[in-house]
């Protein structure tokens, strides 16, 4: 019976996926088309961009115009600093908290853990008004640290690291203790190395998230010296009258380029990272 079933399966596997492939490809083409058109527009003159003539002359002029009309290097620097500050803060705080939740028994721990998980729903995005007041009160308005600090105690990061630490075999910890490690030594030498894939996944997700974040940075920044790329890009598009679609496309491509190139190069790792971060 088995032997009969398997050869039957063969042609089925072969004929059906072609239809699937067509559907999958059509959807994929629709999905990348906005990006493809932006690339098209960015490399053509404004007239050529909208004519859709395949032989329209190519130009880099849009990139030059876009680059000259806003302090992009500063925005790039700000975004880089911002994602770095956030990541360092998150890794430190979430490691300590995740370790406490995973390996310390103390009264009140489980209640606190539920409270931490609640933060997944009390989003920083929703509390923009009061957080703005809080940041101003603390004198952190219009500082990179001020943009980053509300995200540092990430419930998501704490949760992920707690899970990772929990899956570390207790024997490893005991072995390290026999060799004279204290709590910090155990954390540093045993748990952190064991959770390396989780750290990598979390770091990729964090950098991608905060590279792209917009609303909160818009609210707490007020000057070129702190504004991240996304806010810079929105201001750029806002001067609609003078700026044409080709230049906006060029600017948009410049902003997404670093993350995008990173994504293309490390595609597998990125998707794995999102997977790992998503599976609870």
């Amino acid at each position: 019976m088995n032997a009969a079933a398997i050869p039957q399966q063969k042609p089925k596997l072969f004929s059906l996926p072609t239809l699937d492939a067509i559907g999958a490809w059509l959807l994929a083409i629709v999905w990348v088309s906005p990006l493809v058109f932006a690339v098209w527009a960015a490399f053509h003159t404004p007239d050529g961009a909208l004519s859709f003539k395949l032989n329209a002359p190519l130009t880099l002029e849009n990139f030059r115009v876009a680059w000259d009309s806003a302090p992009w290097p500063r925005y790039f620097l700000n975004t880089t600093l911002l994602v770095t500050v956030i990541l360092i803060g998150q890794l430190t705080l979430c490691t300590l908290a995740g370790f406490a939740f995973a390996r310390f028994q103390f009264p009140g721990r489980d209640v606190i853990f539920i409270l931490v998980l609640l933060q997944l729903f009390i989003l920083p995005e929703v509390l923009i008004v009061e957080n703005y007041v809080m940041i101003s009160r603390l004198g952190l308005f219009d500082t990179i640290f001020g943009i980053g600090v509300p995200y540092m105690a990430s419930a998501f990061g704490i949760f992920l690291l707690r899970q990772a630490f929990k899956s570390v075999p207790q024997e490893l910890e005991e072995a390290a203790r026999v060799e004279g490690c204290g709590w910090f030594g155990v954390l540093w030498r045993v748990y952190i190395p064991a959770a390396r894939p989780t750290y990598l996944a979390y770091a990729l997700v964090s950098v991608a998230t905060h590279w792209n974040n917009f609303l909160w940075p818009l609210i707490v920044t007020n000057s070129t010296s702190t504004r991240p790329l996304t806010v810079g890009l929105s201001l750029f598009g806002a001067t609609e009258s003078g700026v044409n679609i080709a230049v906006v496309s060029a600017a948009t491509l410049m902003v997404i380029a670093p993350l995008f190139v990173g994504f293309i190069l490390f595609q597998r790792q990125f998707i794995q990272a999102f997977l790992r971060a998503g599976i609870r």
Partner: protein
Amino acid sequence: MSNASVDLERRRIALYGWMLLAPALILLITFAFLPAFETIWASLYSKGTIRRPSQFVGFENYLTLFSDPAFKKVVINNLIYAGITIPVSVAIALGMALWANAQIVGRGFVRAAYFTPTMLPMIAAANLWLFFYTPDLGVIDRITALFGLPSVNWLGQQETALYSVIGVTIWKEAGFYMIFYLAALQTISPELREAATVEGAGRWTYTRRVVLPLLAPTTMFVLVNAVINSVKLIDHLFILTKGGPDNASKLVLYWVWEMAFAYFDMPAAATMTTLILVVLGVVAAIQFVVLERRVHYR
């Protein structure tokens, strides 16, 4: 070991535990719990002016809000926005995952194409879509013109503005949710498929009876994320419509932003924020109850 020293050891561990938690807890209190309580508190006070300081007004702000036609409009908009973006993007995500998991030519490209919008900032995505929605010259109008259809000001008229915004959100989100379905699909044992084939089950039956039930927990997780995103994803409004024309595409959180930072009406913003927190709290409660039945958080 004596009782006393066991007790001492336990206290020492508790102390260490709290010390490790302290930095994260302080930040969570400062930027999540305290602001949440302050929001609720602020929603019970009137707007202060130079002559009249703000005073306790109970639920008056809520009554004012409920009688405001703009509030009704914005809430209905957000319900339509959630009601369309959530099922459509989750359904597309599922389809994408099934395809991205199938043995097809160029699977790598297909996967990357689906996932690409996830990597873009919403602001950039909105810029890309401007090119599609521009009347006359935009891609959509060019295509519809081929069929002799008239030009449409997609973002500039009340009938289409919200749906144009919804289109961008679906495009942006589906690939993200696909990832979770893809992960779940890869954990399904191939033997199940063989068993189904032996039993004579067709592909559709196999998908409906075996795959979909196995994906139920993933669907739950994705749905919760989709609900949260339908509240917090408003970046594209800043580029595409600014909530207009005449509130036609305004969403709840954008309204909060506008009240607080354009009209400086803090009590109104706090009142609406409180309502959003209540909704998110209900979502959280549902998730905790559902997940409680499975051993998820162990």
